[in-house]
């Protein structure tokens, strides 16, 4: 092994890295490796272009593949300003700050993930298509399917990197798969999601497939979500209710962060069990928050079902933790749990039960984020403004684009 990648994510959650020779690792661990922050999305602040990468040794892992025969390692980094203070535009440092603040009300907090993705075939030019090589559904198994093989290889690779996969299975859509990661500290789980996204894509390539975490790649099939569940440990039951209430209260505010693309909102429609209302339930599959009955003597988990894996893992965790903590601090209550399918809720019932609709577009979500000072406070001014500006620009590009549906609907009609 000769090279180590010093990895971090930008404000949008895209993984970036700086490779250094192994011989430079000691220097890096001492905080002597810098990079040009001015070239990274969301980091631009004239006088703070030089950024220091501070590796977190606990995240050091050898990548389970070789590049041109070379073995590489990777370590995730926090970003600091030259004077050694955490950079306020660094998502990982932001999550650490939020976790520290939340520690006064949520002493034991762990998180796990269920991450969904599609494996599509490549076309003749080697470009990703939306064709799949299987026609399976939930938990289907086909030994001859490359997708199955890729998923198994991904699980093995993740295990080798110290990321335990608690289960892996075929999801609802043809070509859609799910990996479930066991609970760990919230920071470790965010780190793991960064890694999982990279590993899934890399392994898929080896099987001649394209992996995508795009929330809704196909209109007629289920979207890909990221279910995040929180374990609050042995706490008073009322504290769990407060935490659930916090999630419902800030759901609209954290949606832009947890569902950050225009495509995310094609998934958040009343179909395929995607959540659309601020409802909690013990069993309902399309509730925003689910608290399944305790199993095996463990305290009940709190599952948030709206996020998708296009999110910035650190920021998504930060806003969700802030929502949980705010619910506990303000001792909010979530109303009664809902039973049945939320898709059948009438306007009057929703009004009486304080149930709100999740934002229907990225634009609505950004407006809701702007109004939620608690969630904005968790992000900090720097990240909030950088994220908002980037996403408003993204939405504006989308708004100006002419989509195939429009041509199909209007070209001959008008």
């Amino acid at each position: 092994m000769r090279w180590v990648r010093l990895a971090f994510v930008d404000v949008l959650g895209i993984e970036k890295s700086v490779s250094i020779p192994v011989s430079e690792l000691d220097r890096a661990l001492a905080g002597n490796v810098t990079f040009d922050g001015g070239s990274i999305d969301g980091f631009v602040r004239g006088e703070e272009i030089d950024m220091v990468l501070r590796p977190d040794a606990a995240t050091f892992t050898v990548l389970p593949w070789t590049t041109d025969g070379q073995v590489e390692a990777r370590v995730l980094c926090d970003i600091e300003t030259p004077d050694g203070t955490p950079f306020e535009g660094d998502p990982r440092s932001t999550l650490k700050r939020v976790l520290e603040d939340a520690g006064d009300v949520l002493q034991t907090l762990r998180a796990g993930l269920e991450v969904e993705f599609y494996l599509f075939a490549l076309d003749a030019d080697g470009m990703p298509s939306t064709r799949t090589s299987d026609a399976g559904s939930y938990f289907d198994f086909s030994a001859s399917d490359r997708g199955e093989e890729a998923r198994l290889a991904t699980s093995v690779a993740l295990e080798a990197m110290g990321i335990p996969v608690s289960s892996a299975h075929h999801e609802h859509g043809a070509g859609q798969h799910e990996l479930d990661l066991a609970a760990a500290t919230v920071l470790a789980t965010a780190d793991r999601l960064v890694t999982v996204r990279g590993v899934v894509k890399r392994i898929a390539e080896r099987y001649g497939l394209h992996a995508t975490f795009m929330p809704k790649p196909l209109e007629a099939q289920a979207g890909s979500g990221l279910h995040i569940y929180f374990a609050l440990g042995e706490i008073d039951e009322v504290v769990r209710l407060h935490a659930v209430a916090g999630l419902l209260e800030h759901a609209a505010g954290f949606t832009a962060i947890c569902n950050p693309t225009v495509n995310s909102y094609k998934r958040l429609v009343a179909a395929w069990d995607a959540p659309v209302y601020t409802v909690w339930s013990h069993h309902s599959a399309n509730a925003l928050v689910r608290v399944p009955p305790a199993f095996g003597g463990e305290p009940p988990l709190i599952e948030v079902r709206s996020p998708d894996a296009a999110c910035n893992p650190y920021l998504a965790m930060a806003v969700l933790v802030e929502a949980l903590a705010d619910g506990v601090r303000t001792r909010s209550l979530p109303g009664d749990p809902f039973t049945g399918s939320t898709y059948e809720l009438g306007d009057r019932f929703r009004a009486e039960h304080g149930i709100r609709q999740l934002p229907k577009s990225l634009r609505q979500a950004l407006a809701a984020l702007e109004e939620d000072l608690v969630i904005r406070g968790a992000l900090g001014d720097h990240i909030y403004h950088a994220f908002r500006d980037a996403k408003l620009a993204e939405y504006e590009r989308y708004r100006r684009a002419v989509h195939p549906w429009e041509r199909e609907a209007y070209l001959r009609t008008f």
Partner: protein
Amino acid sequence: MQDDIAVPVRPLRRDRSEALLAFAEALARVAASGGGAQALAGHLAAAIDAAVLVEDAQWRHLAVAGTGERAIPPSVRDLLPKDADGEESVALASPGMPRARAYPLRAGEARLGWLSVFPTGTRSLEERTGLIRLTALQIAVELSRDAGGGRGRRRGFWDRLLARAYEDPLEAREDAQARGIALAPGYVAVAVEGEGLDETVAAQRNAEIRRVCLDTLGSRTGDVVVVERGGGFFFLVPAPLEVDAANARTAATMIPRGMHRAGLDVKVVGGVGRHAEMIGVARSVDEAHEAMIIARRMFGGGRVIPYDDLGVYPLLHRTGATREDWRTFATRVLDPLRAYDDKHQTELVRTLKLFFDVGQNIKEAAAKLNVHRHTVFYRLRQIGEIGRLDLDSPHDQLTVRAALAVDELDG
């Protein structure tokens, strides 16, 4: 001889008059210092060496004094003679306290409550009647003054509302507005009482209970109204929406834990009424009270239980429940399941009935329904969730069986 007798009596009467005057002046000073009924009761208790309890016309504690190590009843409500008209003092039917008496608190025609005196040992109150009546008079003046002030005016509104004295919501709203009260569209009533309180510390404990309850019930939708009755409290929690009512119910059930968390060694019992419109809040109060009684008798206290969770018990507890009451009860229990069956073409009610018909034998129920055992388990879980029932609980089993029986009897 008459002169011989008269001579010593006159100075004595003068002395008594002087003593009464001195006591009245002292009461006036106590009242002027702003101590209110509590300070006046304390002054009397010290003067006559007796325990003193002051309650208003709604049996709310206004003052307790002089109890020392002695236990006195929490209220004289049930100790007054049936013919007590509030005109004259009356002997109390208080076991072990044969000389205890209650003196009416009156201001003109208004009957404002009772001042009750529990003398030490066998001492008679006869010689001290003057001091007691003077104190009662001074407390009545204080109460009248309070009633004329903002607090009293506000309290007067809630008393009238709970007494169902308003003809319609508009009248109530106008009166509330005139008294500076902001009304919520709806409320949930919560009844709470301390259990087994030592009377010597009852007042202090009740203050703590009140504080913890308000802290636990703290509403985002307006101020929680506190109504003291007898030895306990009713809290009226503003609940404009059903979700606020649900949260009030949840918060109320956590009051015993709140007491524990606050480090208070006080056991409480309570009940929660159903969500009511403002004009009908008295119904919620009645239900909360009934739920509290059932919580104590059927569930051993130490809990605050919502009326809605008591199933059949309110009907069993109530005297004179009509056929219509039973029908309403059965409908309330079974309708959510029926609605679900209608909407989803399921057989929850049939499954429930069969489950009990075969003595809760899953295997037999599955055979009769021609489904797998797991399907029966699944349906029972659905029934529990939709109907908010715990089918493993004997109490809920009784409720469901009663509802099914009523349903069947009605054809």
